[in-house]
């Protein structure tokens, strides 16, 4: 155990085995993968009621599913629609709207003596009780009317039915060739198992019905999430696959033995396993975006293996401890600064960024430990470099160790300043959440069809009412709805999904109870009972029964919530209603406001984009402190210049080609700093005959990082592409700029020797 760092061997292998067990256990059931891209957004919201309500409203909206079945033959269409409904229900995740309606109908029936429609309120107030009774009889006499004797005996005025007709709008109108299936998912649409089963149900249905001329159009987050998940899986396979293959080939070509890529893969694998296991231990599920970003870890983790194996060309044979000593300090410095860079992501309150920080930090530490602990045991001794390695070394030497005069440095600086100025002038910024996704064209078209056929308008905003108690929140919502209805006659139909319409405050319940007793039951109940053939003596008691055991409908439960000290209620709004109400927001009661989650997310993203730049500044300072502590020289601080400048120039260069700057570009700056600093550290460290191989190593390091991370730029998901391009360009620039570290170091050393100053902290 004289080779390597023996004290690292046992912990490395133990951590690896534990990671394998954790990952195997976690993936033995349903994959614990979250595909909700909105989880990449920061949680920062100072108002906890708004934060909770936004999360709740977004989740509820995401659970809505609408499918339109079309065919000219009505009988065929109805059969196809019936079968599709059955298939979706068979997944165990879907509740059709008519079943949700049944829950609400039961609730209304149970509460019929304390609820009143506004129309009925007016009707009863003006003496229309007799008409209510005749309506009930007329309904019962419709051939095939489903009113049962049990219902009529308890509710001779059919008030439950009246409430249902009044409070729940009819199914959306369709043309004569379409049947609508709408409903709600009983779980998150972002669960992969749910998406897969839903997709399978629809694929099976299409296989049976599409050749009969029946078509289908879908609308719902579950379909978009599934498309996104498929895309993410493809991207993970593509980026991770190409990255891995390219790195294996590179290692094989450079080291000319199959053991080299195997060791590199083992080093990377140790990192990915540890990252995954740590994430799955800390978090319940892991975001698909974390996995995509995690695929890029390949490009950094393999650097540790690369550095170690490269030392085989730089030292005398069979002296492994010397090999490790050559790289231990820079490798440790590089790892610590990289981990610091990634951990800075956790400063943002985005769940996904926190996961990436945990994943990358644990992964990098594990890969580093594996490289310095286990690799020396498995790698062979020093050897002569082959032709490919020698050629690569010469190219790297030419590119990274040029003779830099003051003039060439000055010209380089001018070019950089010019790029920065031009880039800043062209810089555009994207904070809009909607730009995060580019949904597939076929799904967009289908959603347009659904909108056209159903008149469906998505509820993107909501009315938020809060109170110290549920009763006060209900009263505030009732006052707000009354105010809105007074100004907009259509509001009652469009704003039907409000808690207080179905479950009013005690104040309104009491009013309804009194009105029904005085204007309906008192004067007309006996006559109505006789008309329907019921014993008038028994009906009074049954009629006034309220069933306290009626379950609260899930659709209504989704509209209310509570924080530590507040109760709140949500009324979903379409964009049209929201605009109209927002324009008069000042007239709304104090505890009522219109909330636009998209605008709030954009504002939060804007704030965090600005914060990412501040974090970049902080990370630069932290790295400077780490470097200063490790090297104990002022001149070592020049190590920070190349990655810091490269990060800024990368953003400017991308702006020049029209790529906007976003929050995700901002976090990429931290990664550029974390990875780019390695190049500068090694350039600073080496000053003897091993330099040649050091340059080869950091060049290869940059190549592998760009292959893996730069490929993220191919992603169809804007945050991933933005991150990948910024990192890819930034890393290349970091490598190129790292060549200024040695001239600057030498200049400092010459200056210190001449002046007699001591460059020691």
């Amino acid at each position, binding site marked *: 155990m004289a080779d390597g760092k023996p004290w690292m061997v046992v912990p490395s292998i133990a951590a690896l085995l534990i990671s394998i067990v954790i990952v195997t256990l976690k993936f033995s059931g349903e994959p614990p993968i979250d595909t909700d891209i909105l989880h990449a957004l920061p949680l920062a919201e100072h108002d906890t009621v708004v934060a909770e309500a936004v999360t709740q409203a977004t989740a509820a909206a995401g659970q809505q599913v609408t499918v339109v079945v079309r065919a000219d033959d009505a009988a065929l269409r109805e059969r196809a629609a019936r079968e599709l409904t059955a298939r979706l229900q068979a997944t165990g995740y879907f509740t059709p709207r008519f079943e949700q309606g049944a829950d609400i109908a039961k609730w209304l029936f149970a509460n019929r003596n304390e609820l009143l429609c506004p129309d009925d309120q007016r009707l009863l107030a003006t003496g229309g009780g007799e008409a209510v009774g005749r309506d009930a009889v007329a309904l019962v006499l419709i051939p095939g009317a489903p009113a049962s004797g049990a219902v009529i005996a308890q509710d001779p005025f059919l008030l439950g039915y009246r409430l249902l007709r009044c409070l729940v709008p009819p199914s959306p109108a369709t043309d004569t060739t379409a049947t609508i299936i709408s409903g709600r998912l009983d779980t998150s649409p972002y669960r992969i198992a749910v998406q897969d089963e839903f997709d399978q149900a629809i694929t099976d249905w299409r296989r049976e019905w599409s050749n009969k001329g029946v078509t289908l159009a879908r609308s719902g987050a579950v379909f978009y999430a599934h498309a996104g998940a498929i895309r993410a899986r493809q991207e993970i396979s593509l980026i991770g696959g190409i990255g891995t293959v390219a790195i294996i080939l590179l290692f094989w070509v450079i080291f000319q033995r199959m053991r080299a890529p195997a060791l590199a893969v083992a080093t990377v694998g140790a990192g990915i396993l540890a990252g995954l296991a740590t994430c799955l231990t800390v978090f319940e599920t892991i975001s698909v975006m974390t996995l995509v970003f995690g695929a890029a870890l390949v490009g950094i983790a393999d650097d540790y293996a690369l550095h170690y194996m490269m030392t085989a060309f730089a030292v005398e044979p069979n002296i492994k401890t010397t090999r490790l000593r050559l790289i231990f300090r820079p490798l440790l410095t590089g790892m610590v600064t990289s981990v610091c860079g990634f951990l800075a992501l956790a400063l943002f309150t985005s769940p996904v960024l926190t996961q990436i920080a945990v994943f990358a930090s644990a992964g990098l530490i594990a890969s580093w430990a594996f490289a310095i602990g286990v690799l020396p045991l498995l790698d062979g001794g020093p050897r002569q470099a082959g032709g490919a390695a020698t050629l690569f070394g010469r190219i790297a030497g030419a590119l990274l160790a040029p003779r830099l005069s003051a003039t060439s440095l000055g010209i380089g600086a001018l070019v950089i300043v010019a790029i920065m100025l031009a880039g800043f002038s062209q810089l555009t910024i994207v904070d809009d959440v909607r730009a995060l996704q580019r949904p597939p064209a076929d799904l967009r078209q289908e959603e347009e069809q659904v909108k056209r056929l159903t008149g469906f308008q998505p509820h993107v905003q909501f009315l938020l009412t809060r109170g110290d108690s549920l009763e006060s929140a209900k009263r505030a919502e009732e006052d707000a709805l009354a105010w809105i209805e007074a100004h907009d006659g259509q509001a009652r139909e469009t704003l039907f999904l409000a808690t207080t319409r179905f479950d009013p405050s005690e104040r309104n319940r009491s009013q309804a109870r009194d009105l029904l007793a005085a204007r309906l039951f008192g004067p007309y109940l006996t006559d109505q009972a006789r008309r*329907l053939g019921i014993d008038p003596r028994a009906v009074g008691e049954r009629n006034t029964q309220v069933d306290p055991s009626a379950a609260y409908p899930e659709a209504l439960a989704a509209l209310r919530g509570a924080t530590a000290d507040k109760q709140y209620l949500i009324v979903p709004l379409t964009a049209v209603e929201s605009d109209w109400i927002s324009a008069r927001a000042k007239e709304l009661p104090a505890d009522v406001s219109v909330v636009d989650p998209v605008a709030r997310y954009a504002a939060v993203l804007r704030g965090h984009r600005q914060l990412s730049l501040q974090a970049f500044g902080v990370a630069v300072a932290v790295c400077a402190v780490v470097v200063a502590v490790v090297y104990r020289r002022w001149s070592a601080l020049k190590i920070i210049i190349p990655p810091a400048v490269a990060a800024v120039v990368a953003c400017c260069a991308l702006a020049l080609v029209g790529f906007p700057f976003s929050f995700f570009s901002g976090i990429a700056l931290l990664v550029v700093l974390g990875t780019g600093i390695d190049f500068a550290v090694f350039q600073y460290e080496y000053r003897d005959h091993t330099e040649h191989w050091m340059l080869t190593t950091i060049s290869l390091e940059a190549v592998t990082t760009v292959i893996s991370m730069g490929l993220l730029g191919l992603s169809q998901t804007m945050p991933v592409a933005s991150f990948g391009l910024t990192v890819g360009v930034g890393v290349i620039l970091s490598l190129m700029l790292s060549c200024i570290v040695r001239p600057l170091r030498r200049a400092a050393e010459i200056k210190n020797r001449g002046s007699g100053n001591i460059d020691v902290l």
Partner: protein
Amino acid sequence: MGNARHISREAQAFLGLIAFALALPHADAARSACPQPTDLVITDFSRRFVQTRHLEGLDTPLVSEGTVSLKGDVVDWHVENPFDIRTTIGPKGITQAIGGGEPRALQEGSGGGIASFTTALAALLRVDLYALRRDFNVAVAPSRSGDGWLATLKPLDEKLAALLGTVDIRGCQSVDQVTLSRPSGDYDQIDILPPSSSKAGGDAVGDGRR
């Protein structure tokens, strides 16, 4: 006396045979007078009806009567007693006007689920078994009394079946009686009176027994 009894038995048997022989042509005639439901072509009509709803928990059946008119695929169900109710059922939905007032919409479109029976009423009155088979399992058999046919409908949709139960249609040249038997124990009987019937009185109401 014994001889007389013997003759009497022979005579009885003979008479029985004669009676059977005489009865045969009548039975054939009755069957031949009732075409198969699939062969029926029922044009638009307007006939009196009496509906009796037997509902559990209600002390007396709910009886209503009036005129049912079928025009194309629209049914005009006009109750005149106990009071004026005009219900129009068609592909565009269901509307109802009470006491000669303005019709109000009860349902938009033909829809499925609970409205299947109501919206299938036109097909039912026309004995359009092809159309009825979209929503129901249909079984046709001769009626027990031998004077017509009986079509039994069971909803294909399980939820609707649990609510609606079974629909029996009895008739000969047209629909004469419709009985809805619900799992809850409730049952409705609708007698569609012959075109020649005068305005039905209380006696025309079925006794409600199945």
